[in-house]
C-alpha cells in the first residue's frame, strides 16, 4: 500500500520519493538567486522595478542549449524540485521521484531548472523580501501577481541562463497552468508542454474554496491587514485553517476514507479536542504549514489561481486562446482528482485538438485525488518517462519543424 505522502510540497515529498522505482537522487543541490535589474510590468498595472528569482538547476546544459526543461511549481512548493541540500538529507525536492539520473525526467540528458515564483516565500521577491524602495519587507504592499507575470519572469531567467528555447516546460496543478501559459505567451520558446493535473481555469467551487481559505487568513486578528510582521505576530490560525481546507481538496474522498475512515484516536470524549484521526491529521498539516508559509504569499498565490483564465482574453474560447501555441503537449489527469477533474484536462485537450495541435492525453487511475501528480504511480511515471524519452530522441531538430496534427493555425499554417 502506498504510504500516505499527502502533500503539495515540503519534506512530505520525501515519503513519496522513497517509493521511486528507478533512477537515483541527483544528490546534493544548491539553490541560487538571480537578480534582475530591468523593470517587470505586471498584469495588475504595477511595475516591479527590480526582482530576484530563486532557482536550482540539475544536469548539464547542452552546448546548443537545446536540452533545458523548466519545472513550474504549484501553490506552496518552490524551486527545490529534486535532490537535497548539503547536510539536510531529509529536505528532498518536491518532485524528486520524477527528476534525477535515470528518472522519468532524466537529468543525465536534460538540464532541468526549478524556479520559485514571484510573490512566494522561499527566496524569490515576494511579501517577505525587502522592497528596495523602502528598505523594509514588502509585506502587504507586494503586488498581486498572475500566472502570466510568473511566466514573464521565468522567461527572464531563461535568458539569463542562455536558454533560447526550452525542450519542455512542465508542471503539475498551478504549475501545469504555467506550462500552458508558456505555450501561449512564448510559442517559439518551448517545444513541449507537460500539463499535469491542471485546469484551463478555476471553477466557481475552486474559487469558493480559495475564498474560504483567504477569509480564514484575512479575518485572523493577527493578520493586521497584512502588516503582521510590524506587530511581531503571524496569522497562524488563518494559515492553519487555509491549509486544512486546501488539504481536503487535494485528497479524494476514497483515499481519505481508506486512510482515516471514522477512526478515533482515543474514543469519544464529548469534547472539541481532536477525536477523529482525520481531525488530528488536518490539524497537524495546518500546524506545520503555518510555521513555514507566509500569509501574504498564500493570499497572492490563491488569487493567481483564481485569475488564471486564458479563454477570458479570447472571447471565452479556450481554443482561440490556445491557438498561438505551436508546441507539442502531454496532458495528464488523475481519475479521482475532484479539484481539477479529468474533465477539465479534457477541455484543454479539446481546445488543442480543435487547433490541430499534437497532443497526447493520459488519464491515470489512482485513488489519491489531486495529490496524485506528486506520487508514484507506475503508469504515471512511465507515461511521463516515455514522453521525455521522445523529447530527448527528437532533439533540437524538431523545433517546430513538424507540421503539428495537420495544423492550419498560426505558426504552422
Amino acid at each position, binding site marked *: 500500500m502506498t504510504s500516505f505522502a499527502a502533500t503539495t510540497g515540503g519534506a512530505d515529498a520525501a515519503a513519496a520519493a522513497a517509493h521511486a522505482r528507478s533512477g537515483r537522487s541527483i544528490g546534493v543541490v544548491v539553490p541560487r538567486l538571480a537578480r534582475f535589474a530591468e523593470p517587470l510590468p505586471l498584469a495588475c498595472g504595477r511595475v516591479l522595478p527590480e526582482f530576484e528569482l530563486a532557482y536550482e538547476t540539475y544536469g548539464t546544459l547542452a552546448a546548443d542549449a537545446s536540452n533545458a526543461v523548466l519545472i513550474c511549481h504549484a501553490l506552496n512548493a518552490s524551486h527545490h524540485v529534486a535532490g537535497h541540500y548539503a547536510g539536510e538529507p531529509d529536505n528532498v525536492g518536491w518532485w524528486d521521484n520524477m527528476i534525477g539520473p535515470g528518472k522519468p525526467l532524466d537529468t543525465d540528458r536534460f538540464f532541468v531548472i526549478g524556479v520559485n515564483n514571484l510573490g512566494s516565500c522561499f527566496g524569490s521577491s515576494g511579501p517577505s523580501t525587502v522592497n528596495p524602495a523602502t528598505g523594509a519587507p514588502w509585506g502587504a504592499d507586494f503586488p498581486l501577481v498572475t500566472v502570466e507575470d510568473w511566466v514573464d519572469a521565468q522567461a527572464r531567467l531563461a535568458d539569463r541562463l542562455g536558454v533560447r528555447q526550452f525542450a519542455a516546460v512542465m508542471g503539475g496543478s498551478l504549475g501545469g497552468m504555467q506550462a500552458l501559459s508558456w505555450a501561449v505567451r512564448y510559442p517559439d520558446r518551448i517545444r513541449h508542454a507537460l500539463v499535469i493535473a491542471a485546469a484551463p481555469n478555476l471553477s466557481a467551487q475552486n474559487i469558493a474554496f480559495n475564498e474560504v481559505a483567504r477569509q480564514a487568513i484575512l479575518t485572523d486578528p493577527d493578520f493586521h491587514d497584512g502588516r503582521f510582521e510590524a506587530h511581531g505576530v503571524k496569522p497562524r490560525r488563518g494559515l492553519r485553517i487555509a491549509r486544512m481546507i486546501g488539504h481536503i481538496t487535494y485528497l479524494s474522498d476514497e483515499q481519505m476514507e481508506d486512510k482515516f475512515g471514522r477512526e478515533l484516536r482515543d474514543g469519544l470524549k464529548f469534547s472539541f479536542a481532536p477525536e477523529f484521526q482525520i481531525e488530528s491529521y488536518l490539524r497537524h498539516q495546518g500546524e506545520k504549514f503555518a510555521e513555514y508559509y507566509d500569509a501574504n504569499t498564500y493570499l497572492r498565490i490563491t488569487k493567481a489561481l483564481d485569475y488564471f483564465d486564458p479563454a477570458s482574453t479570447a472571447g471565452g474560447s479556450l481554443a482561440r486562446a490556445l491557438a498561438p501555441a505551436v508546441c507539442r503537449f*502531454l496532458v495528464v489527469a488523475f481519475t479521482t482528482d475532484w479539484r481539477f477533474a479529468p474533465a477539465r484536462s*479534457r477541455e484543454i*485537450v*479539446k481546445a488543442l*485538438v*480543435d487547433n*490541430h495541435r*499534437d*497532443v*497526447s*492525453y*493520459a*488519464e491515470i*487511475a489512482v485513488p489519491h485525488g489531486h495529490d496524485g501528480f506528486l506520487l508514484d504511480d*507506475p*503508469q504515471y511515471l*512511465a*507515461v511521463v*518517462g*516515455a*514522453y521525455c*524519452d*521522445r523529447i530527448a*530522441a527528437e532533439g533540437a531538430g524538431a523545433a517546430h519543424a513538424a*507540421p*503539428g*496534427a*495537420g495544423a492550419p493555425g498560426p505558426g504552422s499554417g
Partner: protein
Amino acid sequence: MAPYLPSAAAAAGRADFATIGAWIAPAARVLDLGCGDGSLLAYLQRERKATGYGIEIDDAGVLACIGNAVNVLQSDLESGLAGFDDASFDCVILSQTLQAMRHTEAIVNEMLRVGREAIVTFPNFGHWTHRLQILRGRMPVSSSLPYQWYDTPNIHLCTVADFDAFLDQRRLEVENRVVLAGGRSVSVLPNLLGELAIYRFRKA
C-alpha cells in the same frame, strides 16, 4: 514498464495497414479509434504523412503510443466522440475494435459525424473454419479470433454479409470493400474464405 501486448488482430494486421494506407489521401487528418499501440497511425504518418490522433482506453496501449511518437488520447469509445467537432477529420478508422464494442451502431454514427468517411475492419465470423467449428458444436477459435468463449472481448461478431446488410439498411455508401485471407485479397466467396474484412464507407 509493462510490455504492450498487441491483440492478435493487430499482429496479423500488416496487410490491412497497406489496404487502409492506400485509401488514405496524402496528409489526411485521421482519427484511429481503439488505436492499441499506435502502430497503424505510425504507419500512416510514415507512409502517407497523415496527421491526427489515436484513441485508446488501455494503459499499456497509451504508454506504447507515447513511445511510438503517436498522438494518443486516453478515452472510452463507448462514451462517444464528444471531444471532436463534426466533420473535423478526413477519415475515422475503427480497426479490429467494432466486434468488441457494446454500442456498435452508436460508434458508427459518431464516426460519420466527426469524419468525412469511415474505415472499419473486423474479423470475418463467416470464415469457413469458424463455420466448421460451429458445425462440430464448438465456439470458433482461430488466428483471427484467438479467444476462448469465456475470455473473449468480442461481443458483436459479424460476417461480411452481416456488415453489408448493416450498411445497406442505413443507406451508407460503401466506397471500397476488401476481404483478406493470409494477407491477400479474396474476391471469390469472400464471406466463406475471408479472414479480415476492411470497409471504407460514407454517408450517401
